[in-house]
């Protein structure tokens, strides 16, 4: 696409050229008109002189004629003859001079007629005079007639001269008019041309300045590009499709382990560096690129002269430039390091995943399979107790009781452990769930102990969130049952559940979160509480603040809570003071 500036310049040039051509045309026309006029003037003058000559010649002829008549000396006939000839030649000249003017031609005809008649008159008088030496009546008459004829000739000539004078003045007027305008027109046109030229000049100088600035920018950009190519291990290339020529950036040479511009930038030369296993694939891709005019991301290896193998990734896209030439602009990147890093991370991830899976599987299998024999031991014990009670001594029965409580505890441990491992392994399917509903379910599950302890649960309206509903329900159950368990003797538990939305940056514990908002759900009870120093410890697996005999429990419940909250990218905290109740605060992130 032509730039506005170049279009402007082109227009200025065309206009200037047109103006100059116009001036040339006008000048030519005027000069030719001028020369025409001067010829007309010259002709006019020669016509006048000829006409005057005719009169003088006629006069000469008359003088000769008179002399002869008086003297009859033939000597006087010579000038007469001469002037006669002169008049004839004069008339010839007049013929050529007045061809263009019809009126004048008519007048010349009359003149010729009159001159002819005059000469006839001369001839008659001559013949009369030859016979007689005296002036006869006839001769006198002839002389008189000759006088009249002469007058008429004079009148004719005067008329012709008048006409010619008129024509001349008329011509001069026209010429004056024409010639008078010419300088003004020339001047005007010159001014216009000058203005156009000046504008063009300013425009050009402005463009030049901009071009210069652009050039400087381009130069900086080019240098930067070269720098950045080196730093980022990238390179660029251009394929001029029309000419099938390539242009490689310096760094492309470096990417194949060569000095910049050290070989002719052709595909053949480049292929020499491509790994032999990848050359077919790359060839196919390049062929496709030539057909489809686009190269999708293609990865291939190159081998440096010293044997180093690097992974390159290329991409290119077709672009039309302003002149409509087709070019492919390509980028080739060295991705060896990225690939290596990715491979390492992948490997680590796999290892981690494997160990995690193994651990979970071990946990699950261990706890699940441990249940089977334990359950049988317990069942057999119940059989023993029921069927053989009479055969067992009192101490034996005590031992059975101890065994029963020990195995019951083991069962509890196994079940909690199983649940803990399940919070890791269960399918992490996040569904939009109303948390009020989950809390209702949790309360239903705990209905018996809530009634037994005469607990009151006061609850805010909870939000709807994307959660693993089983886990959140478990979380609520664990926290509430924890509060129920550690209630104060003789004081009915009151559990207050509050909710508010908080800005992550306002809360110390979550200020580095990737989420802007968090739901803050607080469970506050009026139970026995604990020392704030233990606030972190209570969430650790198997950690208990109380002796087994005081409060039953495995020390897994709150660890499960922590796990569940972490599965939801949240944070769980505990705040408490002895005998002042405890608060469990859960922050769960969400998107608005």
């Amino acid at each position: 696409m032509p730039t506005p500036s170049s279009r402007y310049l082109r227009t200025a040039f065309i206009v200037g050229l047109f103006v100059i051509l116009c001036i040339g045309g006008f000048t030519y026309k005027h000069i030719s008109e001028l020369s025409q006029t001067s010829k007309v003037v010259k002709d006019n003058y020669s016509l006048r002189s000829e006409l005057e000559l005719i009169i003088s010649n006629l006069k000469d002829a008359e003088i000769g004629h008179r002399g002869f008549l008086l003297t009859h000396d033939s000597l006087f006939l010579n000038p007469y003859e001469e002037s006669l000839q002169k008049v004839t030649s004069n008339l010839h000249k007049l013929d050529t001079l007045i061809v263009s003017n019809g009126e004048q031609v008519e007048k010349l005809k009359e003149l010729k007629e009159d001159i002819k008649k005059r000469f006839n008159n001369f001839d008659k008088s001559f013949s009369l005079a030859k016979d007689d030496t005296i002036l006869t009546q006839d001769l006198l008459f002839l002389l008189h007639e000759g006088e009249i004829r002469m007058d008429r000739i004079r009148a004719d000539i005067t008329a012709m001269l008048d006409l010619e004078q008129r024509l001349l003045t008329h011509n001069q007027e026209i010429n004056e008019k024409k010639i008078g305008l010419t300088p003004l027109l020339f001047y005007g046109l010159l001014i216009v041309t000058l203005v156009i030229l000046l504008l063009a000049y300013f425009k050009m100088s402005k463009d030049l300045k901009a071009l210069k600035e652009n050039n400087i920018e381009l130069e900086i950009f080019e240098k930067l590009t070269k720098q950045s190519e080196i730093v980022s291990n990238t390179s660029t290339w251009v394929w001029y499709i029309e000419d099938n020529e390539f242009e490689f950036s310096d760094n492309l040479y470096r990417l194949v382990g060569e000095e910049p511009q050290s070989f002719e930038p052709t595909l053949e030369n480049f292929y020499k560096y491509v790994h032999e296993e990848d050359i077919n694939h790359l060839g196919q891709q390049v062929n496709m690129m030539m057909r489809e005019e686009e190269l999708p991301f293609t990865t291939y290896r190159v081998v440096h002269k010293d044997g180093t193998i690097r992974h390159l990734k290329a991409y290119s896209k077709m672009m039309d430039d302003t002149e409509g030439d087709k070019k492919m602009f390509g980028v080739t990147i060295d991705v060896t390091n990225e690939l290596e890093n990715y491979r390492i991370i992948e490997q680590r991830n796999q290892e981690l995943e494997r160990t995690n899976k193994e651990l979970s599987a071990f946990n699950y299998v261990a706890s699940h399979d441990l249940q089977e024999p334990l359950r049988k031991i317990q069942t057999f014990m119940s059989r023993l107790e029921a069927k053989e009670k009479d055969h067992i001594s009192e101490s034996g029965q005590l031992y059975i009781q101890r065994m029963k409580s020990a195995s019951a505890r083991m069962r509890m441990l196994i079940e909690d452990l199983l649940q803990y491992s399940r919070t890791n392994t269960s399918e992490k399917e996040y569904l939009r769930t109303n948390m009020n509903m989950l809390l209702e379910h949790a309360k239903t599950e705990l209905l018996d102990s809530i009634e037994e302890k005469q607990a009151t649960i006061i609850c805010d309206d909870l939000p709807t969130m994307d959660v693993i509903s089983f886990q959140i329900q478990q979380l609520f159950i664990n926290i509430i049952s924890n509060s129920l368990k550690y209630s104060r003797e003789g004081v009915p538990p009151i559990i207050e559940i509050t909710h508010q939305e908080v800005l992550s940056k306002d809360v110390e514990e979550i200020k580095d979160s990737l989420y802007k908002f968090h739901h803050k759900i607080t469970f506050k009870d009026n139970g026995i509480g604990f020392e704030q120093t233990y606030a972190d410890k209570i969430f650790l697996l198997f950690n208990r603040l109380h002796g087994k005999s005081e409060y039953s429990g495995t020390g897994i419940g709150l660890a499960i809570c922590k796990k569940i909250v972490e599965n939801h990218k949240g944070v769980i905290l505990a705040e408490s003071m002895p005998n002042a109740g405890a608060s469990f605060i859960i922050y769960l992130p969400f998107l608005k």
Partner: protein
Amino acid sequence: MNSDYINIALADDDEDDRLFFTEAFDELKLKSKVLLFKDGIELMEYLNDGDNTLPSLLFLDLNMPKKSGLECLKDIKATERLREMVIAIYSTSASEEDIENTFVKGANVYIKKPNDFEKLKKVLSEVVTTNWQYQTSGLNKDNFLLRL
């Protein structure tokens, strides 16, 4: 006429569990006939034989060699002739999700094997009586879901 026996079947690879099961039914004094199978294959062979009387109540252990309880459940529900049987899953333990899953797949009862013989008896009798209610009171069996 209340003279007919309830046909009950249990598929469980664990010998002790089969023992507890039969002893519990013996002590319950229900009019029942208990059929025992050691694994899923044995069970399915019996069920697929058209000459055999089908149990009206089938207890399935989930963890069995060769063919798991879940696979049996799937096959039973896919067979027109067996579809009407009431299926009770009889398993050591499972997560809430797994339990819901077995219900969704067509199980009617989910029993977590109790660790006390008396409880076992209670649980089994509850299953049988509930089942009986469904059989005799014209209740919609699609709604028969019981977890013990």
